[in-house]
């Protein structure tokens, strides 16, 4: 009888009746705790880096914005911004934007072609070599890279010497490593591998059967690329080029050590101002230049977003 009663929850009475309910409540509490734990776990995991990012990026941005609108006496002013929109500061922005555009578009295309050649190669060894080399070279900038180029293509560089021996000294044909286009050339060295790294996964997503399907329907290789390959890759290519733009726009050490400030670029100007090369009464101009760089990058990202939105409407 007891067992029969306990088998029928509706007929249970007495002290034992509360046990299942209490057990149910315990289970519910445990479930709530578990789900809360699951919800908080990602937040807890992200917290250290989020705090670090805020201190390393958020606070400086806020500081740059704040001081860009402050005079040296601590009063609100627009004079810093007025200064950086004229003269050498404006030239610095123009040069930096042109440099970033050239070193995003040219390496973007070169990197895409190189990555495609590697992706379609049958040699797995070559693929691994290029992937490893790209990973290293994409991070090989600054003083080391500058020195390497000076030793190679400087006016007394080894390659220059070899080319001189066959009467092809590039310096005699107007080449100057320490000029704006010298900087462009050096930037290619890390921008092309960076594009290879970024675009290779996207190329892996191009299915061979798309090409075969296109061919089967009468498309030539060019028309396949025009109607299928390039449109499919476009969002990734744009993303890669945006990364190159940011990298080319903000790079400092390579340009500074190569040109010693003779090429006017916004990051070099900030470096110079930070080093104390500032005029009296213009102590906060560096912040305004920094703010200008943020604005340029923000505008670039907005433009990128609009273009990408158009290029990838098929992904939505």
């Amino acid at each position: 009888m007891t067992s029969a009663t306990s088998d029928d929850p509706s007929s249970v009475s007495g002290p034992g009746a509360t046990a299942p309910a209490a057990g149910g409540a315990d289970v519910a509490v445990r479930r709530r705790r578990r789900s809360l734990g699951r919800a908080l776990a990602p937040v807890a995991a992200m917290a250290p880096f989020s705090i670090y990012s805020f201190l390393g990026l958020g606070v400086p941005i806020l500081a740059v914005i704040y001081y860009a609108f402050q005079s040296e006496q601590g009063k609100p002013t627009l004079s810093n911004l007025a200064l950086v929109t004229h003269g050498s500061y404006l030239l610095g922005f123009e040069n930096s934007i042109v440099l970033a555009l050239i070193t995003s578009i040219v390496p973007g295309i070169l990197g895409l072609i190189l990555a495609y050649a590697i992706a379609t190669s049958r040699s797995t060894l070559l693929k691994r070599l290029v992937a490893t080399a790209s990973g290293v070279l994409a991070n090989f900038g600054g003083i080391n890279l500058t020195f390497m180029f000076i030793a190679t293509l400087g006016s007394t560089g080894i390659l220059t010497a070899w080319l001189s021996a066959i009467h092809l000294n590039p310096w005699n044909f107007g080449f100057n490593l320490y000029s704006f286009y010298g900087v462009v050339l050096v930037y290619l060295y890390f921008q092309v591998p960076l594009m290879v790294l970024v675009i290779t996964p996207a190329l892996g997503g191009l299915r061979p059967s798309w090409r075969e399907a296109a061919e089967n329907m009468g498309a030539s290789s060019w028309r396949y690329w025009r109607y299928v390959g390039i449109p499919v890759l476009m969002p990734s290519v744009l993303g890669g080029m945006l990364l190159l733009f940011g990298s080319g726009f903000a790079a400092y050490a390579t340009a500074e050590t190569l040109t010693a400030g003779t090429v006017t670029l916004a990051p070099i100007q900030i470096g110079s101002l930070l080093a104390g090369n500032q005029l009296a009464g213009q102590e906060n101009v560096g912040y305004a230049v920094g703010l200008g760089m943020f604005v340029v990058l923000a505008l670039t990202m907005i433009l990128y977003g609009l273009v990408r939105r158009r290029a990838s409407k098929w992904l939505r």
Partner: protein
Amino acid sequence: MTELADATRTTEPAPAGARVGLEGLVRTYGATRALDGFSLAIEPGEFVALLGPSGCGKTTALRVLAGFEQLDSGRVTVDGRDVGKISAQHRDMGMVFQSYSLFPNMNALNNVAFGLRMRHQHAAQRRQKAGELLELVGLSDQAQKYPHQMSGGQQQRVALARALAIEPRVLLLDEPLSALDAKVRAELRDQIRQLQQRLAITTVFVTHDQEEALSMADRVCVMSAGRAEQTATPATLYSRPTTPFVAEFVGVSSRVPVEPVNDTVTLFGESCRVRPSDAGVPTGEVDALLRPEDVTVTLDATAKPFVTHKSFLGAITRVIVQVDGVAVRADVRSDVAADIELGARVRLAVVSRDVLVARRAPARPAPTD
């Protein structure tokens, strides 16, 4: 169906199926011979399935026909013309791929219209025709959808419409149903067959699924190791396999050890003729290959064979009987099988006039299906 028929009338080209010849195709990859002298002749408007296990060369044969693979030797002809030197781009063959392969950056309408665009058709014309073809496959309401917004079955129907848009003389289907679930697969199977018959397009269909091949094709070519084992109508292939491989690959067969004497063998106490085989009558130890429906089962308490398994398959029940250590499958009407208990002693008999024999295979675990 009415809609389908009406739509077909508007787009249906004149029967334009081509005669296709594959003659002595050889294709090697390193030491592997994917095609080893494969030959097949396909009549205009015929639906032929290439059936075989993985690695038998069926997809390679299809890709050779499409122009995606180069031959080491052999000849591919379309209406008697050697197309070996014609690129895939100019072969006028529509292909449907296993993985759909719709262009992800184009909506359904533009995918279908792609081939027409490559043929420089006017935009309005190609939109109209693509729309008609989408209606033909029952997807006119999905015209503006992108591939990732459609189900697998819908994508494959768009792929079919895309392949048909160029009015191909040969339609190539590379396992088009294998990525779909069973229900969609059955629906699309019927739709493909109906369209093929209405449009009278010569069609080559690659599959490893014998049910698909037997239910859809006019003829089935069973392939093994890069060669055609047997090419015949589904009924002939099933009931009169000419090689042991076909007998075992298509349908279900039980192997029963026998000793041939003057082209006859004794099976369950009765004499049967040995069926002539392409491979000839093997010598040495041989097995008879028996279809489950060729074996009858009768309850007999004095007999030695006994029932070990029963599988209900609807109208019939498959019974497995242990005979001298050998498992023999037999199909029994389910109402009759209801009276046959597991362990029951039964008597077996063969209903066919002749049986196929093959060299004895190594011992395998007893079947349970």
